């Protein structure tokens, strides 16, 4: 039981964090570099999924994903099964839910790139997309790493949305975090302890590993003093 909840959690968190890291690049790029005055609104909308209580957000997603709705029916035709209560639906919901955590740190990194550096790339004749690919993204690795960590950790602990959209189905949409809650409520002292411990163990191992990696990356880059 714990094994399947663990594997659902691992798959969901890794996929969510990784897909979000990829998505955050164009989104943060738009927010930071577009001259359109819509970006402030866009950034605020991005942050909005944060302020909705997870269960409410989950409910809204459930309505949007429902095969009766247009987006839901399109997706259902694409996937061959309705989105809600499936792993695919859970993934999509997690992506929406954790989006701001991945995008904000990347946007912040983008903002801190000196205009001088961007200008220099343009002067050498780089078209905008090349500037983005070769200058903006490589200089924003710390932000991408922060975004990945926040997205990952947030998905591991996600509860309300997962419950609502996933339906807590063992082996499919039941994550460690749902299981830990169930165990806690059922007052099986041992069960809850096991799943909380597993959750903590799994998370700490991945976070420590990641922080070590990142720190190494940062150290090798920051030694810019002559």
């Amino acid at each position: 039981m714990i094994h399947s909840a663990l594997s659902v959690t691992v798959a969901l968190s890794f996929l969510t964090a990784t897909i979000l890291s990829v998505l955050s690049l164009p989104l943060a790029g738009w927010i930071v570099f577009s001259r359109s005055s819509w970006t402030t609104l866009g950034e605020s909308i991005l942050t909005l999924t944060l302020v909705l209580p997870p269960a409410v957000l989950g409910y809204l997603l459930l309505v949007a994903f429902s095969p009766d709705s247009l987006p839901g029916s399109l997706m259902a035709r694409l996937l061959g099964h309705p989105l809600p209560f499936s792993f695919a639906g859970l993934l999509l919901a997690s992506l929406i839910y954790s989006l701001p955590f991945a995008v904000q740190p990347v946007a912040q990194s983008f903002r801190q790139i000196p205009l001088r550096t961007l200008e220099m790339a343009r002067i050498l004749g780089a078209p905008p997309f090349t500037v983005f690919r070769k200058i903006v993204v490589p200089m924003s690795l710390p932000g991408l790493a922060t975004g990945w960590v926040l997205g990952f950790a947030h998905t591991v602990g996600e509860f309300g949305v997962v419950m609502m959209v996933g339906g807590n189905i063992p082996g499919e949409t039941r994550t460690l975090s749902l299981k830990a809650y169930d165990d806690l409520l059922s007052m099986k002292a041992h069960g809850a302890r096991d799943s909380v411990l597993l959750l903590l163990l799994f998370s700490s191992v991945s976070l420590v590993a990641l922080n070590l990696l990142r720190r190494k990356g940062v150290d090798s880059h920051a030694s810019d003093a002559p």
Partner: protein
Amino acid sequence: MRPMPLEVDLVLPGRGAALSGRRVVFTLSRDSGILGLCGPSGSGKTTLLRVMAGLCPKASGVVRVDGVSWLDSNLGTDLPLERRPVAYLPQGVSLFPHMNVRENLVFASRLAESAGFGKRPPSAGRLSGFRSILRGGSLPGWAQEVVELFGVSRLLDKRSGELSGGQAARIALARCFLRSARLYLLDEPFAGVDPEGRAGLGRILAGLLARRKAMALLVTHTPDELCPLAFGMVRLLPEEDGDESPGLPVQQGQMSGTGAKGLLERSGRWE
């Protein structure tokens, strides 16, 4: 009648209180070579270069190269940076901090190649994309030549932050010349380079410009040193200090020989 290689008649954009309404006028009749640009700190040399490169949107006046208007505020012409055949070396450090020296140079040479510069290998075509992946981060042959000319091939594996001031200046200059342009705008390219180095670089520049049939506008604070290489010198007057009144007479960029009168004649028309 052949058009003038370079005509400039600009009112520099006011930057804060500084520079407001300063006018710079000069014309070049020679097709290639170095024209010096000097003047005290704050007199607008960097601003002038940025206007000519297309980096300063608020300038008014005329910049015309080979008869083509890059900027003509009367007609509303203002070619974007991308469409001006210009290369610009900014003042100060400009290497990309996240790339090592080789990556900096490869980045610039790839961009130059995609603009049609450099001798592509004869087998270019369908395979070239694949090849360029295989070569990975290596410099193409033509770029290697330029890099060797500037004497920086020993430094290729250094990270940008590990260079001495003079080394960084040389590499930035080499990177600038990986780009093919009609007009090179060089803002104190020899800053931080030792005297022997400056003399050598000057000769290299003169040779390259002659071969590429290109002009350079070169900012310097040691105009005497440049004399043997440049065919003329534009000198900007010092900034007016103290209380500015709006009715100040328009100031013009002046061209002077700084101890080498003969250069003035070679410099063509001057107003």
